[in-house]
């Protein structure tokens, strides 16, 4: 117990770092992912190409490489960002590709008749997307989006390698300080992640049941 008391501040700060990194990156991924999904189903071909290019680029690049680019690549073109911002951008931009694809599967699952009815009423493409397609798509993709979110929370651990003191970064630090407490260090760090991911899984489950639409 003494171990946790001694290192509480460090663990707490690391936990908050992981939490804020997750929330900011998650928000970025959700907004950008939605925009990308809208572009991928747009009737305007260049928008589709652009979004497809984005998704395939980020989805097929290891996250560590994205971090490298943000933190060491961008300064090469005189664009310096701090480590935390770099981490938010890396995780957010990377995850947006997965959000887009999850949403797109939901969009494809919306019955064609819903779109026809919306067009027949006189809604424009944008209105049809906003009023009919996306609200229904979001409801069907709550479970896969939950997966994306949990994977993303864990992916923030890569920021440890880029000077962001989040949860995983305290692992080597504490182990080096006192190798005898290895198990306790692991328990502390894992508990930090679980505090974020377990309630998320529960919330996703609740949300799924609440927003389910009768068909």
């Amino acid at each position: 117990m003494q171990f946790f008391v001694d290192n509480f501040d460090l663990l707490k700060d690391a936990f908050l770092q992981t939490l804020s990194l997750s929330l900011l990156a998650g928000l970025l991924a959700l907004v950008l992912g939605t925009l990308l999904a809208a572009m991928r189903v747009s009737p305007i071909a260049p928008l589709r190409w652009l979004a497809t290019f984005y998704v395939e680029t980020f989805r097929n690049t290891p996250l560590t490489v994205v971090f490298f680019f943000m933190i060491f690549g961008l300064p090469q073109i005189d664009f310096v960002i701090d480590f935390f911002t770099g981490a938010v951008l890396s995780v957010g931009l990377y995850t947006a590709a997965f959000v887009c694809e999850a949403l797109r599967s939901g969009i494809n699952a919306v019955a064609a008749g819903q779109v026809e009815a919306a067009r027949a009423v006189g809604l424009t493409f944008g209105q049809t997307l906003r009023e009919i397609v996306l609200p229904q798509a979001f409801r069907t993709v709550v479970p896969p989006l939950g997966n994306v979110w949990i994977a993303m929370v864990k992916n923030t651990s890569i920021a440890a390698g880029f000077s962001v003191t989040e949860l995983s970064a305290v692992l080597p630090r504490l182990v080096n300080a006192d190798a005898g407490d290895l198990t306790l260090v692991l328990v502390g760090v894992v508990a930090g992640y679980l505090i974020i991911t377990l309630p998320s899984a529960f919330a996703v489950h609740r949300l799924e049941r609440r927003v389910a639409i009768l068909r």
Partner: protein
Amino acid sequence: MTRPNGEPLVRLSGVNKWFGELHVLQDIELSIDRGEVVVVIGPSGSGKSTLCRTINRLEPIDSGDITIDGKRLPEEGKDLARLRSDVGMVFQSFNLFAHKTILENVTLGPIKVRGQSKADAEKRARELLERVGVSAQADKYPAQLSGGQQQRVAIARALAMDPKVMLFDEPTSALDPEMINEVLDVMTALARDGMTMVVVTHEMGFARRAANRVVFMDGGRIVETAEPENFFTNPQSERAQDFLSKILNH
């Protein structure tokens, strides 16, 4: 039946459409006057649903001209959306917006397309729901209603836009028999009120009761056009005679 003078409300001329190799609409010529009720019948695969759906360009055509109120159907985009808002459409499978309440289904178009206030749109929507007999269901979701109720809501949704013409694409084909009449009654009342209607249907009773003209289609062509009584008692084309003998003698 008297047919008013002047420019027809809907005119299709030289309309052709292919689905790949299949020539689904062949040299269609059809004019529909204001206040006229046209019933389109024919065997399945005759192109009657496709014809109906070309009028608001849910199906684009390959050649020919379609005009509504003297204006040519625009290409995909804002102009087409505006035109569609003047053309009500009722589908075989209802297609009510599944995540919106009945009231929201009816007010969505008036609010988003016509820019009406929520209060005005809801007042009018409740009147329309009353008129089609489902006002008690206003706060429910579509899946909680019977098929007949859903279809009447779909009619109210189309009417809320004050359309110039209403298209009905087999509106009773997905309904249980006991619900067909409740929908046909609403449609008959609409026809009596002078709505211009194009109705794809197999309901001969409705055609006799409410239609000014019956258009018989087969193999992508309009084979015969006649007043309902004449068509049913004395069809001119062999194809229509054959079709009617099959559906009337059972």
